């Protein structure tokens, strides 16, 4: 689409006065609809009572309702109406950052003790990735980012708008609905030394396919040899296995191996703080002095984007993580969420197998986190929607959060129907 600079062509009278009716914005086309939002819109518009929404990327309880964690409600009660809302520092809440780093790097992390981590509070995972991408562009303008195939669609938007060239590396293996480890390793080896890689720390979105611990170790090894920079997007710590320490395993392996990593953390899912936009961007540096310098540069990028980050969610996070009672409550609640997801995976697979499906549905329980890459084709997905009123994205991604004990049988039946001839 050619961008007509309409501003230089003014002609004719306007009903609004001296200005022409051919406006500044005549050349602005409507943006494409977001593929995921469109699913929910269509779902909401459907009057069918037994409709199912498995496109949703947010946790739902067994009744299909959104959940606010008890620990969050308690934290909210403590701060309601009480605090003044003075600007946070540009880098965000120090307390929240400190607690957040402990979660990712470990309670006794040497990097934290030695103050070697440059970290800022960020606008959830998106904001953390974006500031990092801008930082990468500013300080390593010749670098590129290697992104797994597939990945969360917004990753591409983020690095594109940051003007960082993107490359891809093999990740998902459609035939096995698992990890294409050999091809992934090949791509890592073939990338020029010192390349930047985007890795999902746990619960890969959208496939739910994670490397095993052994595989992570091998990946880390090759990264060392190649001198690559690993940037972890960790949006599901705690939410994947139910255990935050376990979900941080990949990161800890890389830290043990001596990588100076970067991490984007989000509290959207694991604390259910979706709309609050709370997260953290961190970069491991050589020493405290470097970390101070890097942090100052991260702040420089944040300042002309939003000046300083929102306080409310940060307060909730720091209250919860710094209060042992609330933290324990949170750990229990995050396990409950993870367990429900895992339970639904088992139920869905069992139901499909009970129906006598000849296909393998092993991947449903092997995959981890909120999403299941079902292997369904776009046509099969369309049939699910049109015939069964089941809504999901056309790449066959099922959000297990939308599966409940009340709809899992129906869902299994429908999937079986559309796949039994294949």
């Amino acid at each position: 689409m050619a961008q007509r600079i309409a501003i230089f062509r003014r002609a004719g009278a306007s009903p609004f006065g001296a200005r022409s009716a051919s406006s500044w914005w005549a050349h602005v086309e409507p943006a494409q609809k977001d593929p995921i939002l469109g699913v929910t819109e269509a779902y909401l518009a459907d009057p069918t009572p037994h409709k199912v929404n498995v496109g949703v990327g947010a946790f739902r309880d067994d009744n299909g309702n959104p959940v606010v964690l008890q620990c969050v409600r308690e934290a909210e009660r403590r701060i309601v109406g009480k605090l003044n809302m003075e600007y946070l520092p540009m880098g965000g809440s120090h307390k929240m950052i400190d607690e957040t780093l402990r979660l990712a790097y470990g309670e006794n992390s040497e990097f934290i003790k030695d103050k070697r981590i440059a970290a800022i509070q960020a606008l959830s995972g998106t904001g953390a990735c974006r500031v990092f991408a801008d930082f990468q562009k500013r300080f390593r303008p010749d670098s590129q980012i290697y992104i797994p195939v597939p990945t969360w669609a917004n990753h591409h938007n983020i690095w594109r708008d940051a003007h960082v060239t993107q490359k891809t590396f093999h990740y998902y293996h459609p035939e096995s609905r698992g990890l294409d480890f050999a091809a992934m390793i090949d791509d890592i080896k073939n990338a020029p030394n010192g390349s930047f890689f985007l890795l999902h720390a746990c619960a890969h979105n959208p496939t739910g396919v994670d490397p095993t611990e052994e595989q992570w170790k091998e990946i880390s090894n090759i990264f060392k040899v190649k001198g690559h920079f690993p940037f972890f997007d960790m949006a599901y710590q705690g939410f994947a296995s139910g255990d935050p320490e376990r979900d941080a395993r990949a990161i800890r392996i890389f830290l043990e191996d001596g990588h100076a990593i970067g991490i984007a953390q989000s509290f959207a899912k694991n604390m259910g703080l979706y709309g609050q936009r709370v997260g953290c961007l961190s970069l491991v540096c050589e020493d405290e002095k470097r970390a101070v310098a890097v942090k100052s540069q991260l702040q420089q990028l944040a300042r002309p984007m939003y000046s300083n980050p929102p306080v409310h969610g940060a307060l909730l996070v720091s209250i919860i993580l710094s209060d042992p009672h609330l933290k324990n409550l949170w750990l229990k609640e995050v396990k409950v969420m993870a367990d429900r997801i895992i339970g639904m995976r088992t139920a869905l697979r069992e139901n499909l197998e009970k129906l006598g499906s000849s296909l393998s549905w092993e991947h449903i329980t092997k995959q981890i986190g909120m999403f299941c890459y079902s292997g369904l084709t776009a046509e099969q997905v369309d049939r699910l929607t049109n015939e069964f009123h089941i809504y999901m994205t056309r790449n066959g991604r099922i959000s297990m959060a939308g599966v409940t004990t009340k709809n899992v049988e129906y869902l299994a039946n429908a999937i079986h129907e559309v796949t039994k001839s294949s």
Partner: protein
Amino acid sequence: MASIVVSLSPASMADAPSVRHHLKENTKVKTNDSSSFLRGGYGNAFVKSKSFSRFSMVAAVNVSHFEGISMAPPDPILGVSEAFRASTNEMKLNLGVGAYRTEELQPYVLNVVEKAEMLMLERGENKEYLPIEGLAAFNKVTAELLFGVDNPVIKQQRVATVQSLSGTGSLRLAAALIERYFPGAKVLISSPSWGNHKNIFNDARVPWSEYRYYDPKTVGLDFEGMIADIKAAPEGSFILLHGCAHNPTGIDPTPEQWENIADVVQEKNHIPFFDVAYQGFASGSLDADASSVRLFAARGMELMVAQSYSKNLGLYAERIGAINVVCPSADAAARVKSQLKRLARPMYSNPPVHGARIVANVVGEPDLFNEWRKEMEMMAGRIKSVRQKLYDSLTAKDQSGKDWSFILKQIGMFSYTGLNKSQSENMTNKWHVFMTKDGRISLAGLSSAKCEHLADAIIDSFYNVV
């Protein structure tokens, strides 16, 4: 090897040798991997301990991906507050702060905000993602507040409104829209203006230049200069205007001057781009403070308006504001809104919910709204009264007959005193009045009890320091 962009300043280059030093030391590394670690140059891990293993948590560090990054310059305004905190003098006064303070110089949480938060907690609202464009209820009330609920632009649905991260976030989204759809178009910024304006357009890669605004001789508006510079700008430029309570000078055009500005903007087919950070806070009246924006809208002009609720609702840290684009049709507004969303998605996906709900509750509920108007009048009233007191003190103490009335004419939180850099430094060093070096003081940080002291300081600095 990918080249490293080491920072541009010499100071950082001096740091680089330490990296080479480490690499030199690192000649006896044992690895349990057959490949060599020491590829030379950047991109290698090295260890400080003798034996490498996965169990050594402390030592190994890959230093080099972001080596040589220098310290960013300190923020000129934050530095003021830091210095203030460090000062132990009893008489110290922080006039750098861009946030409202009570007469007791304490931060202020508006009653209506507390009430709104209580309501929200009682209702037990969830924390689901907002849509990319933000909370619908907020977007509705914020546009109505700005333009007036009966304004044709509202009735005809011609305003594309997207909730954003306060004023900064709104400006940044608009800047990104300009960069994408008007490549090469320039933004004109007043001289002086809020410091972050330039950063926003720089980072958004939008070229900018300045138009004359502040006249140091009169400590007032250089109106001729302003008009001339707007006229001289290439047709189709974006003119960044402060809707009310100009930051940092406090000097606003008169209604007649606004008409003239609108004439020139129309004549040159420029796009007016308003930054409205103080609606209601400037004069105490929400409608009066929006009159400049409404004047332009009434002429049928397309315009952009960035709004912030940081000051007028005291929601500084919640980051709540909106970008509004007035278009000629509802269809155009829908298209523009969709593109604003496309810019927001890779920045932060969707905006924070808390502040939006507070605003929607306060503005959307008649009792709360009326209470808010009163609180705002109170805040604006306190600012006006300290202006008066300061003026009275200055006039009483200054025997020279200098006209200090600009203090009364200026409006909003800030005042340009006319003090230069050395004089401002004297204010701090001798009188412990902390302010920015451009002579700007924040009346929001002044109590009536301290007006005399401030007057003494200003007079001394003005007359005895060059």
